[in-house]
């Protein structure tokens, strides 16, 4: 009995779709809350996240305990002082330093034993003890790396001044591509854009369509000649435009405020954003078709779109390092593909080998979600 959901473009299609788009746009402009979700939310979120999330440890306080001051130990402490990442704080003895570490006043201890200077002069083993606070494993690892560097530099300097000591047999020369300053913000903010766009696309549409169900306007629309395709297109287009506007704001903020380089091209960025937004809107429409209640739709949208975009998209936690089942799960998170595209377009440029497969995945997601929405929506109340 049921007719296909896609009855083809009937006469009057354009007129009806246009009427629905005009109606939706009027509602958007009169309802401050949807404008707020579309424009104020990305702005505020990007500000909070952009400034709040930073993995770069700068000026990490390190307790320095010199049992005896010697030129050798002073040289090492000076190296510490010159590091942009570490800030040495002198402590009189190891006990007070340990206490400070325990209370998290310092993140590490550099302990130069009493015989440090003497042993260095006599080319014997000089114990440099380093303790880092392992509670925050990530910071701890960074601090270890920084201290290592300071130590190596100090060693190299002494080598140059002294005789050939052949101390460091293998030297590591690191070259960081795309982000030579190694600013975490540069990769976090492109990822954030994906998270925020998920929120706008899915949450906004989920709430808006559910609202039509709740207020009974959907029932009234159903008993007009407008087909389900026309109603969906009438929803999709205005929120697509709104979402692209939100996208524009975040990109401008990223480049102008946070000074993230945009090495790729605008057309590629626009096209891939359009694909991602279509997928996100598709999810939003799907959620609201199933939930039909603003409260439930909002909750589902947050749990199935926002949280995965945050945790499983690889924007902050490395996907490769997740356990296999969760790694598999990330493949069904559209944000994952968009994060990859954004990080590449911003930091590396238009690299087809990254962009094309990810864009294809996004396009498939968009098609999939929109097709499901079309297939399961019908002008029935059952």
């Amino acid at each position, binding site marked *: *009995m*049921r*007719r296909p959901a896609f*009855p083809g473009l*009937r*006469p*009057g299609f354009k*007129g*009806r779709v*246009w*009427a*629905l788009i*005009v*109606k939706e746009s*009027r*509602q958007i402009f*009169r*309802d401050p809350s949807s404008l707020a979700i579309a424009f104020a939310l990305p702005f505020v979120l990007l500000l909070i996240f952009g400034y709040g999330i930073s993995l770069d440890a700068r000026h990490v306080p390190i307790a320095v305990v010199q049992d005896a001051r010697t030129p050798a130990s002073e040289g090492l402490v000076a190296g510490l002082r010159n590091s942009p990442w570490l800030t040495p704080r002198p402590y009189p003895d190891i006990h007070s330093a340990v206490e400070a570490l325990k209370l998290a006043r310092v993140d590490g201890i550099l302990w130069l034993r009493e015989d440090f200077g003497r042993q260095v002069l006599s080319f014997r083993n000089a114990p440099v003890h380093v303790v880092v606070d392992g509670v925050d494993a990530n910071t701890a690892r960074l601090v270890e790396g920084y201290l290592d560097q300071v130590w190596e530099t100090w060693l190299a300097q002494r080598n140059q001044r002294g005789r050939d000591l052949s101390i460091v047999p293998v030297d590591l020369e690191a070259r960081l591509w795309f982000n030579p300053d190694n600013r975490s913000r540069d990769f976090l903010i492109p990822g954030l854009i994906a998270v925020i766009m998920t929120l706008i696309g899915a949450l906004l549409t989920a709430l808006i369509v559910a609202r*039509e169900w709740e*207020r*009974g*306007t*959907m*029932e*009234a*629309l*159903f*008993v*007009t*000649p*407008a*087909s389900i395709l026309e109603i969906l297109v009438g929803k999709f287009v205005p929120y697509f435009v709104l979402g692209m506007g939100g996208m524009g704001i975040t990109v401008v903020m990223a480049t102008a405020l946070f000074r993230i380089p945009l090495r790729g091209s605008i057309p590629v960025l626009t096209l891939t954003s359009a694909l991602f937004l279509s997928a996100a809107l598709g999810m939003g429409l799907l959620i609201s078709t199933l939930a039909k209640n603003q409260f439930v739709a909002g909750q589902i949208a947050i749990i199935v779109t926002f949280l995965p975009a945050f945790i499983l998209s690889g924007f902050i936690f490395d996907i490769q390092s997740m356990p296999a089942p969760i790694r598999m799960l990330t493949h069904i998170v559209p944000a994952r593909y968009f994060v990859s595209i954004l990080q590449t377009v911003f930091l590396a440029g238009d690299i087809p080998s990254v962009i094309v497969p990810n864009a294809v995945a996004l396009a498939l997601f968009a098609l999939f979600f929109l097709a499901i929405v079309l297939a399961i929506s019908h*002008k*029935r*109340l*059952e």
Partner: protein
Amino acid sequence: MVPDDPASPILTVSGLLKTFPSPAGRETALNGISFDLAPGSVTGLIGPDGAGKTTLMRLLAGLFIPDSGSIAVMGHDPASDPLSVQGTIGYMPQKFGLYEDLTVQENLDLYADLHSLPSEGRRLRYASLLSMTGLGPFTGRLAGNLSGGMKQKLGLACTLVHRPPLLLLDEPTVGVDPVSRRELWAILKQLVADEGSTLFVSTAYLDEAERCDKILILYNGEILGSGPPEMFRREVSGRSFRATSPGQSLRALEPQFYRLPGIVDSVLQGNTLRLVSESTAPPDPPPGAGQIQLEPVPARFEDAFMVRVLERASGIDRSRETPTLYDSAPRNGNREGETAISVHDLTKRFGAFIAVDRVAFSVLRGEVFGLLGANGAGKTTTFRMLAGLLPPDEGVLTLDGMDMRRSPAYARQRLGYMAQKFSLYTHLTVRQNLVFYSSAYGLSGVRQKERVQRVARAFDLESFFETQSGLLPQGFRQRLALAAALMHEPPILLLDEPTSGMDPLARREFWRVIDSLAVLGVTVMVTTHFMEEAEYCDRLVILDRGRILAVGNPAEIKARVAGPDLPNPTLEDAFVTLLSGAAAPAGSAR
């Protein structure tokens, strides 16, 4: 108006069956019904909530698919070809979805566009719709800022924008005050006269049936009768009587009348009692009733409705006494002179808007007192102030001699309150609800157990003790709500539209309980949209724009508007006349 060519009905339904999944298998909403509509007629679909009215309307509009049976709407099947049906007919759902953030004009434009109305015809169509609905001056206003009645009119205008030959209206007058209801009906009548449209209107108001050419009574998914209203009235003509007892109210005697053999229905009307008998012979008054005068009165559609429905609703045990709910009568039923509620100079402002303006009245102990008014007249605000939910800006409010503001806890302890919407915890069981509310009123231990048992027994709720209250049938939910309000035996009861959505039988049952409480000396204050229920009150006030327009017993209020052209006004006539009189000051031509 009714064309006598039944051979080509505009809508035909035959053997329509519709079921919905329910916890206990499938629930039948419509059980094989058949009927048809003649072009140009006004057909009323009448039945209580849950009878299947909305299901039927949605089936006709193609929003549901029938399990079996067939529908033909102007030759189209809404199940297989919904778009053809939806492009032609007009359908106004019960909760018509106006876009509240669009203006009146923008709402009209949207529906005109969706129906691909050519732009040249629009201006004329808009003009006629706006003048018909009286919305002309408000085209630029947001739909959300219209009053309830105006919203319904705008919904109607949107539905009419493409001149549908067939119009399906699902309870267009629900929640609309009597004045706006009359106006809506006037528009519908005009529509039939001007455009020859066919109307199919569902309603829960029995008095609206008389406005239709033909009536379908829908009850429990079945059609209990169809025909013009006169036909129904004829069936019961000569069987309706009015019982009067000079100088006293028949409230206390009503249960005895109701249990008389041969009585089908009995309803209070002010001080008098309206009876429907099984035959045309006047019934004998119950023994010991004192001096009773019986006089025949003209039959109403409602009488026929009750007769038909009661035939179907078997298992009503008339011998069952109305249960005693209170252990002790409040102040021994001393009814004379004692004031239970007194309101003086009560005023409430919301910003610049004065919702209640120096209202004053008093209610005697044991009185049933009605609070009436159009939407937005200040009824609800007054009621909420009485219940202590809203602090008044000015004025004094005394309950049982205690100032509400000075001793709110005392006043609340003496109040029972039943909200308009079912407002118990739907996810708790019946018992958990009763236990919770009784402990909120300080009952505990053995006494609490006793009260819960007793009230549950009185309201027949024992078998539902462990049922989640949200899953109760409609009638039982209302009983539970009343039961919860009565746990602490309050001497004053506040009921806010307590019977909305109740089936007429349940409504009668509900009022019997209220009457028995009033006889015990409980003071009952009630708001309602049903004018027939206003007749149950000893006295009532009519509010208009925050002020008292009239106060008195139903007979007095009716007498105020009686005149040469309206010798026997109903309470609704009185209400509408008083309100429109207030809107247009005396002397102005109207």
